[in-house]
């Protein structure tokens, strides 16, 4: 088994995950025997990632900090075949969802996960969820420090935390190690941003109370600079304040963002700092050896610096227009010269966004073995990433991805749509999102047109819970139900890129499904006609405001 370049479980991690499987197996047995009511069982299955959806149980598998080895990805493929219908969906929190799980087989499915050091612990329920990171971590040019080290530290601290397993509501943490925030830290319950101060020390900006959903909010800075070794103590203080004072009377007002909103950021800060002051010298202070031992496991792979301009690549660029476009949109610079970060687009025109069949997962694992140090990442935009590809291997990777159907040159473009599963799968949804995504992506499939339109992020949610992150889409689409008809509310100008976080502005009355493509067409046309050189869609919108877009859309629908 090849060594990974990220955290490897030791006997302690393995024992815990194995014991968790056995605990859940017993809980399932008791439920099926009628010894537990559904009300008693529900939180137990949720904290093992098992939702009851429209048609079946859905299992949400944790992919900590979006990082997978090829061995793990193959196992996910095998599990999707054996326990599901041969495919899975990569989510906006870097997890994998399987939509057709049987309760009676769920313990076996998570036992299979445990074989490759994976689990579904706390991917649902009122507890601390999967801590997400920048999907380019460890490879990005602009990175200050690898955030995944801290994601792993937080993962362990938050797993089966005895005090925080029955919070008022779910709790999501994201960490970025780069000034260009690819982890959307300002729309998380806690966001952590690594940065270097004037003394040259690296610490965390701690941001609290961001979130999407019914009441979207951008997080407030709780602490400008927190020394790294104090992270767990500070998180514990924050969680304790939340556990004690978060609302428990109203499901829709129970997130920490509401607490911050109601008492104010300043008071929140006081409460956390007071609690933190009482525990600063606690056992939670991280020993340097502990940090180093974990950080060491994320040491970069041994990549040989190489040429940036490779003749074979240059030649193929001229020969193959799609390859040229693919290089522009799907390939990002790597910190090691001669290397690149490749995004496999899981958004082929007309396909359900973010889905991969078992065979496709295995195909990506093979490519990772051959060309990316056996490592794969999951982005929160529902794509897969090959983080360590040599530039000279780009033609081979492109061809291999193309055979899988994952080489569409559309990353960051109009057809790189983020969509939640929606009413086709989800018991919470009001409207479908996947057919809307399919319709839009088919309409805009022509690649040269997509590249002309440029960077444009469409994000679709089937209900107010916003799992599709529509609030932060350049174009956000929210499905609503009005008298049994599916209607779609459009918003403009949301963003989580380049350290800029903005919530979208609603355009006007919701439009029916048949008019969505016309509406998007009108938005694009407005942009193309009005744009200045170098302006992206969202930049033109910021310059002109909503009116010209609104007028054009409602003339067209």
């Amino acid at each position: 088994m090849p060594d990974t370049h990220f955290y490897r479980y030791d006997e302690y991690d393995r024992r815990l995950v194995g014991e968790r499987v056995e605990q859940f197996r017993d809980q399932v047995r008791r439920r099926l025997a009628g010894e537990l009511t559904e009300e008693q069982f529900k939180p137990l299955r949720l904290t093992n990632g098992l939702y009851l959806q429209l048609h079946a149980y859905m299992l949400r598998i944790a992919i900590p900090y979006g990082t997978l080895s090829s061995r793990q990805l193959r196992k996910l493929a095998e599990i999707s075949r054996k326990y599901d219908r041969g495919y899975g969906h990569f989510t906006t929190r870097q997890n994998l969802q399987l939509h057709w799980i049987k309760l009676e087989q769920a313990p076996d499915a998570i036992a299979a996960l445990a074989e490759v050091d994976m689990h579904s612990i706390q991917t649902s329920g009122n507890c601390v969820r999967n801590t997400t990171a920048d999907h380019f971590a460890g490879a990005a040019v602009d990175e200050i420090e690898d955030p995944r080290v801290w994601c792993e530290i937080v993962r362990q601290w938050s797993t089966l935390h005895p005090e925080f397993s029955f919070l008022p509501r779910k709790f999501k943490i994201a960490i970025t190690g780069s000034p260009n925030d690819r982890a959307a830290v300002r729309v998380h319950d806690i966001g952590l941003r690594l940065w270097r101060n004037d003394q040259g020390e690296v610490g965390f900006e701690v941001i609290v109370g961001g979130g999407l959903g019914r009441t979207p909010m951008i997080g407030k800075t709780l602490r400008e600079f927190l020394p790294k070794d104090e992270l767990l103590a500070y998180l514990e203080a924050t969680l304790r304040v939340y556990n004690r004072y978060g609302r428990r009377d109203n499901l829709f007002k129970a997130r920490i963002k509401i607490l911050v909103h109601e008492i104010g950021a300043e008071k929140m800060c006081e409460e956390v700092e007071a609690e933190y002051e009482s525990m600063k010298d606690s056992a939670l202070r991280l020993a340097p050896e502990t940090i180093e031992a974990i950080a060491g496991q994320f040491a970069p792979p041994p990549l040989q610096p190489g040429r940036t301009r490779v003749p074979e690549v240059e030649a193929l660029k001229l020969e193959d227009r799609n390859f040229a476009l693919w290089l522009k949109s799907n390939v990002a610079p790597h910190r090691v010269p001669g290397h690149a970060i490749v995004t496999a687009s899981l958004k082929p025109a007309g396909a359900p966004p973010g889905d991969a069949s078992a065979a496709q997962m295995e195909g990506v694992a093979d490519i990772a073995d051959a060309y990316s140090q056996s490592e794969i990442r999951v982005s929160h935009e529902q794509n897969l990433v090959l983080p360590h590809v040599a530039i000279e291997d780009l033609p081979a990777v492109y061809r291999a991805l193309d055979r899988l159907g994952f080489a569409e040159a559309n990353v960051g473009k109009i057809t790189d749509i983020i969509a939640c599963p929606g009413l086709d799968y989800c018991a919470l949804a009001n409207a479908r999102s996947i057919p809307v995504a399919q319709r839009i992506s088919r309409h805009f499939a022509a690649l040269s047109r997509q590249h002309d339109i440029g960077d444009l992020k469409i994000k679709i949610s089937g209900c107010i819970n916003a799992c599709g992150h529509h609030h932060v889409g350049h174009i956000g689409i929210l499905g609503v139900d009005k008298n049994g008809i599916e209607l779609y509310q459009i918003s403009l100008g949301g963003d989580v890129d380049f350290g800029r976080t903005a919530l979208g502005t609603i355009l006007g009355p919701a439009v029916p499904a048949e008019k969505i493509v016309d509406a998007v067409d009108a938005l694009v046309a407005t942009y193309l006609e009005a744009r200045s050189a170098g302006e992206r869609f969202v930049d033109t919108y910021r310059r002109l405001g909503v009116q010209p877009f609104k007028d054009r859309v409602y003339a067209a629908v």
Partner: protein
Amino acid sequence: MAKNLSGDLRVASANRLVDGMVVFLDDAGQWAERLDRAAVARDTRSAEILLQRARLESFGIVEPFLVAVSEGEDGRIEPLSLREKIRASGLTFAAIAAEAVRYA
């Protein structure tokens, strides 16, 4: 052509505990996988009784509830709401095929 869209017709539905599959209570008080086997309540009182029965037969299923349906000329039952249509008949698009890869 559907008649009786007023919502007077109801069936009882739930998800099966063991596998989450959508099921409907049939005339024999068993939970059937197919909507066309469902017992149909034709007025409010019968609907109440149907739901009570569903709750009594609750071992092996999760949280039964009533679904409003319409009945076609041919006797075909269909749920009124899109959500229940989807529950009864599945995804409204083709999910990724299991072997969607072409290896050169």
